[in-house]
């Protein structure tokens, strides 16, 4: 049983392009539904070509709302469109800052549940989503039983984005409605932190450090190695919480999901909450002085050793090439 129509959130980057997660979800949406349309809290014409290439036939766009918070306004606009009769079988979003806000506001407006953090969706027998629990060791499948649009959010990297070569999507208006008192929050300014090198969640190589580095200054080794491999540095929560590196470096349940060609974990024990964010990597190298460290259970190459001895030699060897 395929669905008749689904709506996918086309989340915008600060540059106004479609975020990778939305293209990932579009690929899955095409598989489960005859008609796929996107909605966006922004300019529809600017993304019509991109989302068309990824299989969407229509963009429902609010127009520029960059001075407002997305959740309350896009949520209310979607609810109004759905109540006006244009109801999809499912509304799919990324488990992102704005994705969660929109899903939450919409769920209250429609009085329907929202299921978050999913990694898969299946429509063979009703709409069933999969979620990983206990650090990804178990998978729970939950069926939407309330009728009406199923609202679900998906973890990044759950699906692989793929172009179909479709024509530019038709642009239609997603009419804003007065959100009343709840709509009063304003967005004054965006701060984009400059980063050099590839993004953590897009890099082909990720080198992450953990508490085993011993002190904040030793993270330099991780950064140097990442740079040499044209990769991105990452971190366990232990050293993010300790203030050694910013939160944007965190890999895991409450951080980023990464699936690089190679993931190098240095001085990281391999707590389930860390592994859930990186065990989809194609290859994993682990360096840890404790032979019992759980990370070795999923590593393709495990080195039982001291990061302070192994990393400097590795860096020297790569420099010499």
């Amino acid at each position, binding site marked *: 049983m395929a669905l008749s129509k689904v709506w996918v959130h086309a989340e915008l980057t600060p540059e106004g392009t479609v975020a990778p997660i939305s293209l990932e979800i579009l690929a899955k949406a095409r598989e489960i539904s005859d008609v796929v349309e996107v909605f966006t809290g922004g300019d529809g014409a600017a993304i019509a070509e991109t989302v068309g290439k990824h299989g969407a036939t229509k963009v429902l766009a609010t127009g520029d709302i960059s001075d407002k*918070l997305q959740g309350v306004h896009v949520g209310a606009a979607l609810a109004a469109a759905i109540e006006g009769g244009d109801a999809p079988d499912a509304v799919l979003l990324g488990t992102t800052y704005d994705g969660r806000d929109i899903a939450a506001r919409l769920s209250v407006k429609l009085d329907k549940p929202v299921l*978050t953090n999913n990694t898969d969706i299946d429509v063979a027998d009703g709409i069933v989503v999969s979620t990983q629990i206990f650090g990804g060791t178990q998978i729970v499948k939950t069926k939407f039983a309330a009728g009406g649009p199923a609202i679900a959010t998906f973890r990044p990297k759950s699906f692989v984005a793929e172009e179909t070569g479709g024509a530019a999507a038709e642009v239609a208006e997603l009419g804003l409605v007065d959100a009343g008192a709840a709509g009063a929050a304003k967005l004054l300014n965006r701060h984009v932190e400059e980063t050099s090198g590839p993004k953590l969640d897009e890099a082909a190589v990720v080198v992450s450090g953990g508490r085993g580095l011993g002190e904040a200054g030793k993270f330099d080794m991780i950064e140097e190695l990442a740079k040499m491999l044209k990769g991105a540095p990452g971190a366990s929560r232990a050293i993010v919480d300790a203030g050694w590196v910013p939160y944007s470096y965190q890999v895991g349940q409450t951080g980023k999901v990464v699936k690089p060609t190679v993931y190098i974990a240095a001085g990281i024990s391999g707590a389930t909450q860390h592994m859930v964010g990186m065990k989809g990597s194609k290859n994993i190298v682990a360096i840890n002085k404790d032979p019992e460290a759980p990370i070795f259970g999923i590593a393709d190459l495990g080195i039982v050793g001291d990061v302070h001895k192994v990393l400097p030699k590795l860096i020297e*060897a790569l420099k010499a090439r």
Partner: protein
Amino acid sequence: MNVVVCVKQIPDPADPGALNPDHTLKRDGKLILDESDSYGVEMALQLVDKAGGGEVTLVSMAPNGEVSGLRTALAMGAAKAVLVSDDALKGAGALDTAKVLAAAVGKAGEYDLVLAATESSDGYTGTVPEQLAALLDLPSITFAKSVEIADGTVKVQRQTEAGYDECEAPLPALVSVTAGVVEPRYPSFKGIMAAKSKPVETVTVADLGLDAGIVGWAGAGQEIVDVAAAPEREAGEVIEDDGESFQKIVAFLDGLKVL
């Protein structure tokens, strides 16, 4: 200034989690204050302090009349708490939880600000605060990494994928805070003693005027159809470093053509 803080009481995250036969999360042992919410409590205490008056009220929904997590937050300095505890709430989804919390906030008295954490450590749906704001018809700013109040307005730095957004909302409003916004204080001995006699009002679903049929398992609108072990990743080669193991890594990377 009065602040209401949502605090979840959860099984100790250090203990391995387990499910009941009906697939709900086992939460019958002792529960503790979710560390994520300790940031909300600390933030509330600091804001009230800066405003020069007012109080912090806690709201929580938890099974078995559990108060240990609430006592921790009261020991930090909150004035009072409203606890919703009712067997009918077993299996409540995020929307149901938000409905219950919205009704509980109604029992907390006048407020200027509602605080919550961005996501709980055990459920981590990350939608309850925004749903709560919608039910209370409040403006909201989620994922706050800095919060300031001046002239009836809350100013927030909101975490984004690329950095942060500067946002503001008129009070009353709801803000959800990320871990690390402030350094949660440890309860003092005096605080712990004082917390024992601070008022905790325990209410049921019926006391809140809610229909047990619409919150909890019965009304969740979702049904767990399967729980299975995830496919495991195979371990590869593990070698002891003999001073030359870096060569192995170089060879491995070479083989993958990432050099």
